[in-house]
């Protein structure tokens, strides 16, 4: 009996070459369909460009929504720029983001139109968003020097929760909620973006911690994560939303800690400073407030801390004086220490805060006729000179 390949005219590796050729021939270029308008930003994952459809006939029907004819193209790093693809193929975060976005369909989640492979790089083509929440809070803080109107804050928060209810109902944890990842259209529609850390948490094949030791940017990281929880839940996203809510009202991060960096041995550092920032405002957690806290791996560290009382109300009066008392109640429900007692995204959506005036809207910026400075678009190649790093903090 002959070996496979014997008498064969084509060696397997030649078939790969032939396949490659066949494939490349079939593919149309991104530039045939989209006009690249410029470069938006870059990070460890790759870069994002702004683009416009070359086929503009469709847009006539959609003129009610100006965002729809513009696109953001997220290009994941290709082989040429790093050895990574040679040894790892598609990055875990690209794999997550693409696979999840491909299945998700919701008004408040970033809208993936198509994915394309070009020059060995993966490209996600998404709906363009004019703003993000980081940009808007900065603008209010530094230029307007005035809080974001409660109507807009409430509308953003409602939509953010609405998107999160959808994600959670579909067993998806976002795990990286922060203002920079909350994208906003010119009309004020929230699109939760960057699902590169998101994952399905239904029946995980291994504890979530084993997959990713560190999740969520430190300022938005829930106390159970900071205390080393191996198993965690949707409540971590709600904590982050609470921090974002506070930041929208106060125009400053509520818990602005210094991140302890990973040491060379790659052990996960204890975030003493971040926890202190939380304790200063929320009070030092007690077993009464959080019965299962004693089971957390880093619970013993707690004795190193001073005892603080709960100062959230004082903080709220100081920085969010323009906001209603119901806003405070919702905020404290989201910043509940005990993840089991923390309000869920769904409960939050039904909170009295959203029943009272001003009522939240789907397109608050359109309704109020508010606009902010547009996203800065650099010429297409300018990113090569200065590539900003995408740190864990914004």
């Amino acid at each position, binding site marked *: 009996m002959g070996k496979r390949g014997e008498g064969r005219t084509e060696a397997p590796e030649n078939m790969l070459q032939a396949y490659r050729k066949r494939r490349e021939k079939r593919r149309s270029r991104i530039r045939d369909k989209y006009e690249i308008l410029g470069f938006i930003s870059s990070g460890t994952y790759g870069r994002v460009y702004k683009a416009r459809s070359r086929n503009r006939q469709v847009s006539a029907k959609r003129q009610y929504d100006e965002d729809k004819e513009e696109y953001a193209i997220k290009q994941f790093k290709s082989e040429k720029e790093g050895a990574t693809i040679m040894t790892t193929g598609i990055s875990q975060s690209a794999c997550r983001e*693409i696979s999840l976005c491909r299945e998700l369909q919701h008004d408040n989640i970033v809208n993936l139109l198509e994915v394309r*492979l070009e020059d060995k790089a993966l490209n996600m083509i998404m709906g363009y968003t004019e703003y993000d929440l980081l940009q808007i809070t900065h603008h209010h803080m530094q230029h307007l020097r005035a809080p974001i109107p409660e109507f807009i804050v409430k509308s953003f928060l409602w939509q953010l929760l609405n998107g999160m209810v959808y994600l959670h109902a579909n067993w998806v944890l976002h795990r990286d909620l922060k203002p920079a990842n909350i994208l906003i259209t010119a009309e004020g529609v929230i699109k939760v973006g960057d699902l590169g850390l998101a994952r399905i948490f239904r029946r995980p094949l291994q504890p979530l911690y084993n997959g990713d030791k560190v999740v969520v940017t430190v300022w938005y990281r829930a106390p159970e994560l900071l205390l080393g929880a191996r198993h965690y839940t949707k409540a971590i996203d709600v904590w982050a939303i609470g921090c974002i809510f506070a930041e929208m009202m106060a125009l400053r991060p509520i818990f602005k800690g210094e991140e302890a960096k990973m040491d060379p041995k790659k052990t996960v550092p204890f975030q003493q400073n971040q926890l202190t920032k939380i304790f200063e405002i929320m009070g030092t957690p007690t077993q009464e407030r959080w019965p299962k806290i004693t089971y957390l791996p880093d619970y013993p560290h707690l004795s190193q801390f001073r005892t603080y009382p709960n100062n959230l109300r004082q903080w709220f009066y100081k920085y969010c004086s323009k906001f209603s008392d119901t806003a405070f109640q919702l905020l404290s429900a989201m910043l509940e220490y005990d993840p089991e007692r923390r309000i869920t995204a769904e409960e939050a959506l039904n909170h009295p805060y959203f029943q009272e005036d001003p009522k939240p809207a789907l397109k608050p910026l359109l309704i109020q006729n508010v606009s902010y400075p547009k996203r800065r678009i650099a010429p297409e190649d300018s990113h090569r000179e200065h590539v900003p790093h995408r740190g864990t903090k914004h």
Partner: protein
Amino acid sequence: MSASYWDSSQRNRWTLTRAQLLDKRQEDIRLANALEVTQLHIYFANFIHSIGKKLRLRQEIVASAIVFFKRFYITNGFYHTDPFLTAATCLYLACKVEELPHHLKVIFTESQAVAMAAKVPFSYEYCDIAEFECYLMEELDFYVIVHQPYPTLSRVFEDLELERSCLQTAWFLVNDSYRTDVALLYPPHMIALAALYITCVLNQASMTRDMKGWFAKLNIDMVMGRGNGCLWNLCPLMIISHALGSINLLMATAPVSKIANTRASSFTRANTPFVYSWGALADAAGFSLKLLDIVQDILTMYEIWSSFDDRKVLQSLDKLHKAAKEANLV
């Protein structure tokens, strides 16, 4: 969507009819024949299983990998690709998707080892798998979230408080179902029910619950009063018809006598105290017909698998490649 099969890409984008699937495989079938193409699919499911076993991968990962493999061969032919590279890459991608990533080197080394054990050259480098992963993603149209029968199966066993030993059997049947095409044709919960069904027929003597009654009720509920657990009668009938070689309901090309050599041998021992009637088939509405199809596919697969000679299957692959070359298809 990821939680709901009904809104998933699996249902809306990646479920085919039997006719569509046959049509997609036409070129391969023309160059070889239907049985050989079926055997190749079983062979590569086995290949992926073997690598998975060496790496002690979870069955869910192996299952997703096989689904990727099958989807890839909907739009591609065996005749112009090397399925060994495809199979290894499918497993590599499945590990990522199922959130238990493995180093490329590990997958590569094991794939090579399993190929070598089968006396097949695997003359690639790491970067070939890494590169091919992108192509694979593209061929899958970037839809990689796979819904599987395992959760339904566990759920039903829990809800009905069925014997754990039976769960084991049903679980293996689901594993083996990936050697058929049912994952491309039917919803995962139907496959779970088919596996449960076969398990119950096999083990009815030892099961405390009246599963015949349960299936009958399920049937009525799902098809609005039609059907009376007819498939329950039909399944043993199919098994018996195989064993006797009298009616070959299944694949015409498969030798019936070999059934005794397989895991399916236990089917022939099934206790079958029912009245068999072909009328039952006519009575079966959509739901039970689907169940019947799946059961039939699984049984057929065991039969083909039992008469399997790896070397011959590999020869068909060579034959395919050669024929494609001669026909200038490559």
